């Protein structure tokens, strides 16, 4: 497994070992880690990032959400037993929405993260895309988020495919729409390029959390610096040490 950055879910650049990078993020005071196996849903398998999260879980004592190709309750169970605190589902939830209900019933809503990737389609509306951003669906992200909550998801992980890796800022309008449509926490991601983008996600987007990948892989940016900026903007964030 190798850690990669992408641009619009394509143009992958290898960064390095995911576990080493995770340790660095932990030292730099990230609040949570999201491990997503982006190949898994394309190949219709659950890659079972078991080796990665087991290694990470040996030395990193902070929350992990794990996803990528998760299809069944057994997949959930295996990931949770091996170090994941939450499991995210994306493609399989669209194909089989009952998976959301089943997982929430067995493991509790707080373990179930509904990951929604969205992109503009040819008629200029936003739609949900699955399979690593390769398959367009007819679903409106807002309606799908609402249904996800109804079925028992505990959190929404919302990612803009168009903005992924571009560092042009988050898709604020969509974040606002999703946050306004559900009562569960929303993690906004896709597009952070400046610390101010994170702040916008919280203040304008009203997201509960902001996620970033590419942002931390170039130049000098690290979670510790971002959290200072977030704190200075008056947003309530954990004071580290």
């Amino acid at each position: 497994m190798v850690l990669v950055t992408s641009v619009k879910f394509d143009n992958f650049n290898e960064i390095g070992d995911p576990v080493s990078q995770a340790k660095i993020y932990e030292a730099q005071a990230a609040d949570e880690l999201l491990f997503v196996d982006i190949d898994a849903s394309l190949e219709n398998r659950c890659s079972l990032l078991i080796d990665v999260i087991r290694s990470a879980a040996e030395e990193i004592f902070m929350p992990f959400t794990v996803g990528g190709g998760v299809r069944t309750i057994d997949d959930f169970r295996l990931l949770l037993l091996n170090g994941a605190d939450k499991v995210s589902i994306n493609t399989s939830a669209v194909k089989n929405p009952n998976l959301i209900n089943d997982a929430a019933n067995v493991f509790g809503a707080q373990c179930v993260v509904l990951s929604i990737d969205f992109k503009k389609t040819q008629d200029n509306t936003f739609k949900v895309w699955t399979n690593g951003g390769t398959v367009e669906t007819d679903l409106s992200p807002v309606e799908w988020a609402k249904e996800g909550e109804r079925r028992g998801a505990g959190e929404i992980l919302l990612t803009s495919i168009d903005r992924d890796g571009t560092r042009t800022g988050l898709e604020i309008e969509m974040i606002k729409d999703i946050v306004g449509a559900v009562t569960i926490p929303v993690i906004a991601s896709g597009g952070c390029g400046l610390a101010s983008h994170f702040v916008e996600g919280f203040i304008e987007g009203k997201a509960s959390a902001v996620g970033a990948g590419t942002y931390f892989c170039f130049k000098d940016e690290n979670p510790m610096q971002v959290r200072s900026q977030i704190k200075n903007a008056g947003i309530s964030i954990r004071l580290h040490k």
Partner: protein
Amino acid sequence: MIGIIDYGMGNILSVKNALEMIGAEVEICHNPQQVTNVEKIVLPGVGAFRDCINNLRSKKFVEVLEEEVIKKGKPILGICLGMQVMAKRSYEGGENNGLGWFDAEIVRLKPQDSSLRIPHIGWNNISFKKDIFLFRNIPESPDFYFVHSYFMECKVPDDVIATCDYGGNFTASVQKNNIVATQFHPEKSQDFGLTVLQNFSNWTF
């Protein structure tokens, strides 16, 4: 030797790793018999109350826990759902009875601030009572990681050793004699979490 109860629900691996990181000797107790051989017990828990208590019952852990914890006084640390199952009853997904070790009920969080979402997921700081062994060497107002929709509402105020504010105070940690428990996940709360585990490991009751 600290035994972690494996009843099919809980992030056993993370708890084991965290305890080993602080130097404790750890054994995963897959069956009730193993619980009789350990000096301290950790009861983790992730998921829903009903499955938690049903699993504990069906795997016959309830009897051995009553024996080892209540009768013999072995120290036990309950984490998250492992704390909640120690209550008398829970209202999550219907009414279910717990172990009844604390005169308390498990009820849904109802933050007074409507912009605060449920589940309560993320880091939040707690207020703890002074001179509690569990929070030794931890400064005031430490952050821990929470991920839950329900909390333990205690009828006995003295049982509550820490609270957390999420649109109103809720119980973050309880203690009664040899039984201690946290709503937050020490195994996921970095340095302060490891200190909590260290304090439990060092505890002589």
